[in-house]
Every structure is written in C-alpha cells, then in structure tokens.
C-alpha cells in the first residue's frame, strides 16, 4: 500500500502547485531537481498507463470541485437575512475582509473563524470588500454583485478572477468608486476593456498583471476609456525600446 500512497502524494503536490499559477505550466518556472524528476516520472506513467491517467484526471477534478464548493451561493442566508449579510458571510468565509457602512473592518482570524454578530446589520449596506488572495470565481461573484452600494472592491492576487469575471462588474456601475486588480494572474487587457461601464470609478489599480501583453499601452488606453479615473499601473515608458541615438 505504500507505493500508491506515494503516487497520490506526488500527484497531489504537483497539482496543488499547478492551478495556482495558471500559466506556470507553459512558462519556464524551473522546479528543483527532485520535483522535476517527479514530474517527468508522472508524465511517463500517465502516457503509458490508462489507470495513472485516470487517477490524475480524478485528482484534477477534485481540485476543480474544491474551488466550486468554496464559491457556492448561500441562498438560505440570502433569503433569511438579505443580500448584504449573505455577501459579507461569503467574503469572510473565503478569508477576506468586509466593512459595513459606519462600522469597522471585519476579518476572519488566521484559522478561518469569525464572529457572527454582523448578522444584526441586515439593513446596513456593505461599503467595502477586500477579497485579496481569495479563491473567488465567476460563480462566487454572484454574492458580491448583490451588494448594490459597494464602493470599494479589492480583488488583488485572486487566482481565479479572469476576464469573464470582469465582464460581470457592470452590475456595480452605480456605486463602485475604487477597484483594485493588482497581481491577478488571469486578467488581461480584454477584461480591462469591459470596465468602461464603471463610469463612477475614481481609483483603479492595474499594476503587476502578468497576462497583459502591453502594460504601458494598456494603461494609456484605459486612462482614455475612463477619463475621470486615476489609473495606477505600469509606467507608459515601460516596454518602449530605445532608439539608435539613445542606445549608445
């Protein structure tokens, strides 16, 4: 029984490492010697044995289901306590922070526990959400889009926030003033183009987006698209090549 457990351990460690950086599989992130040997061994086995391939597919499915489970919608809480409480509960469960209007920031402690006394704020709208590093995806965004008075949203370093999620943000166009997308690995300039609906936006942070092909040009185009907004991003000179006179 030791050998299959070792395989499972190897497989799960590789796949834990995989989906976090969705482009890491194609980019050259050089793993250390033993991990590289482990990967090569797994690849060889998966190419030659149907069972190993099925096992790896099963482990991948489990990863995907885990993210879906985290992003389920809390319909019971929404019906009983209203959309603000449901949205706040969702964010706190994911590990983010929530600020109700007139209250302080609330966050879960290191072990994922938080107090439930915000349940009495049924009529108080949620003003700000900080979901940095949370595993929010397209489905989970349902809970946030119900917060119609949201003014500040921070989705920094969220691994599953992509262009499709950004296309849904138009529902917050009436209130959103501050948005931060810094460090999201799946957001590209195509998703940023959908932000033109958010005409009330005053601060937008699009720095450090690895999937954007041309950060300097993108920042200029986004600034043109949202004239009243302060855009924090890459410097416009980044990516410019030096001319022949300047190179010497």
């Amino acid at each position, binding site marked *: 029984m030791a050998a299959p457990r070792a395989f499972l351990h190897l497989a799960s460690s590789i796949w834990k490492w995989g989906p976090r950086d969705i482009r890491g599989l194609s980019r050259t992130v050089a793993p250390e010697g033993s991990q590289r040997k482990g990967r090569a061994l797994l690849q060889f086995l998966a190419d030659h044995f149907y069972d190993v391939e099925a096992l790896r597919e099963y482990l991948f499915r489990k990863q995907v289901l885990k993210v879906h489970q985290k992003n389920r919608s809390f319909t019971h809480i929404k019906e009983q306590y209203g959309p603000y409480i449901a949205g706040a509960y969702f964010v706190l469960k994911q590990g983010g922070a929530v600020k109700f209007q007139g209250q302080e920031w609330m966050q879960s402690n290191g072990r994922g526990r938080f107090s439930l006394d915000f349940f009495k704020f049924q009529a108080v709208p949620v003003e700000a959400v900080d979901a940095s590093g949370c595993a929010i995806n397209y489905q989970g965004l349902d809970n946030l889009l119900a917060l119609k008075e949201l003014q500040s949203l921070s989705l920094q370093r969220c691994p599953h926030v992509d262009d499709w999620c950004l296309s849904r943000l138009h529902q917050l166009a009436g209130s959103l003033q501050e948005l931060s997308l810094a460090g999201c690995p799946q957001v590209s300039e195509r998703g940023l183009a959908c932000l033109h609906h958010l005409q009330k936006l005053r601060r937008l942070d699009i720095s450090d987006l690895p999937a954007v092909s041309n950060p300097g040009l993108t920042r200029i185009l986004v600034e043109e*698209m949202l004239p009243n907004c302060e855009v924090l991003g890459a410097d416009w000179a980044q990516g410019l090549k030096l001319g022949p006179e300047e190179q010497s």
Partner: protein
Amino acid sequence: MLRRALRLGVGRCPLGRGLGTRRGGSTLDWDGKVSDIKKKIQSVLPGGAWNPLYDTSHLPPEHSDVVIVGGGVLGLSVAYWLKRLEKRRGAIQVLVVDRDYTYSQASTVLSVGGIRQQFSLPENIQLSLFSVDFLRNINEYLAVVDDPPLDLQFNPLGYLLLASEKGAAIMENNVKVQRQEGAKVCLMSPEQLRNKFPWINTEGVALASYGLENEGWFDPWCLLQGLRRKVQSMGVRFCHGEVTRFISSSDRMETASGEEVTLKRIHEVHVKMDRSLEYQPVECAIVINAAGAWSGQIAELAGIGKGPPGTLQGTKLPVEPRKRYVYLWHCPQGPGLETPFVTDTSGTYFRREGLGNNYLGGCSPTEDKVWPHLAQRVPAFESLKVRSAWAGYYDYNTFDQNGVVGPHPLVVNMYFATGFSGHGLQQAPAVGRAVAEMVLEGHFQTINLNPFLFSRFYLGEKVEERNII
C-alpha cells in the same frame, strides 16, 4: 519469423525506392534497410498494425462505429460529446475524416470569431448560451493531463446591433425574447448611444441593442486545437482523406397510411487518400455529415435529393458554400478600447483587433461596398488604410439560413450538423451535444432542436432568423 522479416525488408527496398532511382554504384543503404526491418518487427509485435504485404498505417481503420465527415469545429464537437456521453468508457469508436489537415479552407479558422445571444429564435439563443458557458469553462471541459491550459483570448465586449425605423419594432421584440431566455441585453436610444460611444454617428439609427455579458469574440483556432487535443486523448481516430462513396442498402417499407417508402442504410464509407487512388472502405454504423460548406456534396453522395422534385426523396440538402470577405484595416483615430462588435443597419460590421487601432470587418449578406457604410456610421473611418483581407465560406443554408441538425428521414443512419450560415462556430459546442444526444438517446434532451430537423425542407416550414452576419 525474423528470417522472413529480413527477407521482406531486403526484398522491399528496390520497390520502395522506385525503378532506376538508385544513387550511384553499390551504396547498400544499410541504415534504410535496418529501419525498414525495425518497422516490420514493431508492426508484428502486439499493438502494431500488422500487414505483411504493405504498410497501412496511413489508412483509416476498417471498422468504426461512427464516421464523422468533416474535422472542423462542428465535427470535433460532435466527436467530443459522443465520447463524453457514452455509457461505458471506450464503448464507441469514432473516426473523424477530413481532407485538409491544414484547415486552409475550413470556415472555422477563417471566421471572425464572434459569439452573441442576440437572435430572434429561442433555440438559437439557448444554443449560444450553452456554448458561451462551455467556452467560459473550457479548461474544465477540455482539460488534458500534462498539457497547458487553453487561452481562448475572449473579448467580453458585447455586440451592438443598430436598427433603423423599420427594424425598431422587430428589435424590441427580439430583445424581449432574448431576455426571457436569460441573455443580458439592453436597449439604447440614439442619445444614450452618443453618450456612451461618442465616435458613432447615429443618423438613421432608431434603436440599438447592446449585449452586456457573455458576448464578444474569441480565437477559433484555439478552440479547434483544444477540441482536437482533447478528442485525441479520448481515443477518437483521425484520418486525412476524402469521402468519395457511400455503400448503402435499401429496404422497401410501408408507412402506417399504406404509402411505400424506401429506407436506406449506409454500410460503408470509402475514404480516398490524398493525391493517390488508394481508398479504404470503412464499415460504419452511423455517419455524421459535418462537412460545412461541402455538406451538400456529401449528401448527394448518399443519394439525398435523387428523386422526383417535390417528394421527400427529391428534397436536396440546401447547403452550399457562400464566399464572404473579411478586411483588416488600420485607423489611427478610430474608436478606443471599449468598442463592441458593431453591426450596422446596412449589414456592415466591424470589431476592434488588438491594441494597435486595427479593426476587422466586412459586410453581410450582400457584398456591397463596405467603406461608404463604415465611414457613414463612424466618421473616423473616413481615413483608414486596409492592411489585409481574406475570404472564407459560409455553409449557407439557402432555405432559411439556420442549421440542419438530426437524422435524415430516409437515409436512417446519416445525421446532419451543418448549414449554420455564419453562426456555426458560436453554436458548435451546443450543437455537438444535441447531435450526440440524438445519436445515443434518439431524441434531444437538453435543448429541443426539433424545428431544425431535415424534414422542414420537404414540409416547407421555414425557421427564419433576422440579421444574420
């Protein structure tokens, strides 16, 4: 056995090289002989294609449960869903036959790549909604172990359809149907249009419908390669060849009302290899016609349409190739990053391409002059420079410009998945699933595509859509 293999290997060399093409004197070409022998031994061992007379590894298999004629996005989508919905792993053998593995004339890769839910038929809207769901979760549907995830390059910027006075009422009606089915579309007046998109000239525009979510454009080549890769990993065989003949048998049967009908069943498909007279008869149970612009020719091969006109035997498949042109131009003062896929009242359309002020566009249905309409709608396009252009075929359904899905009433084991006249790419995942359900279960399960069956051509029931791009 080794001696026999050696003898065959040695004896084969002059034949393989052709008479009189030996290079200089007595070069034995020992390496060539060794590789021949190795190939021979490998084919004898289990798992190889053993044929003592000649190498048949380029030919398709002799039996296959399902043969899909056409390896574009529709054919591959049907293959994917057949393998995905089969009851037991490995239950169905699927063979995809395509005569051009470079896809140089395939409609899929020459398409502009748009996807929208702004149709007037509820079935079309549902097909498009499911397809967009498929595209959004493409890395869950088409995940292959050890391969990098797919990047479809989807631009979720929406479609903007403009309507004149005459079309305004129809557009309002359409938007109502679309909203009922779950599409997120909003109506805009000319004033709202001017506020949102200041580069538009709203002269002649009475109403506009704008898709807010799940609409845009993507890279069709990426979808094709992703499907191909996944479908190969699921065990579908590919063959590079052309279908030249169907061998079928007929049965005379009587309907309930006493009429006589001749039902046909296809038993073999002859697949001819490229640039050669060699062909392989593939025994099959089901044939799927997903040949795109050439589906009409495939249907004729199966005998569809050979009969007195006005009867069911004489009803041809009304799908023919229609050439459409796409132009790429550069306009330095053109519309910015938020430009949606704009469709004008005259049928001209355009969309942004990349970040460098390049735009793709064309005109459909009629090939009028494109530039005057563009310049009239977007004054910035008065100064533009055409960079390049290409043309592709629509699998144009001359009857009602909507797809043909499902079995033929007389040729009982031929199923159609073609005729989508320009919106095949955006409906391909959903249509593939519908055809797979029809093949495996006998009826449509998730989306009811009964209005799109072949029998409507005989009965004369048109299922028409407006504003085909």
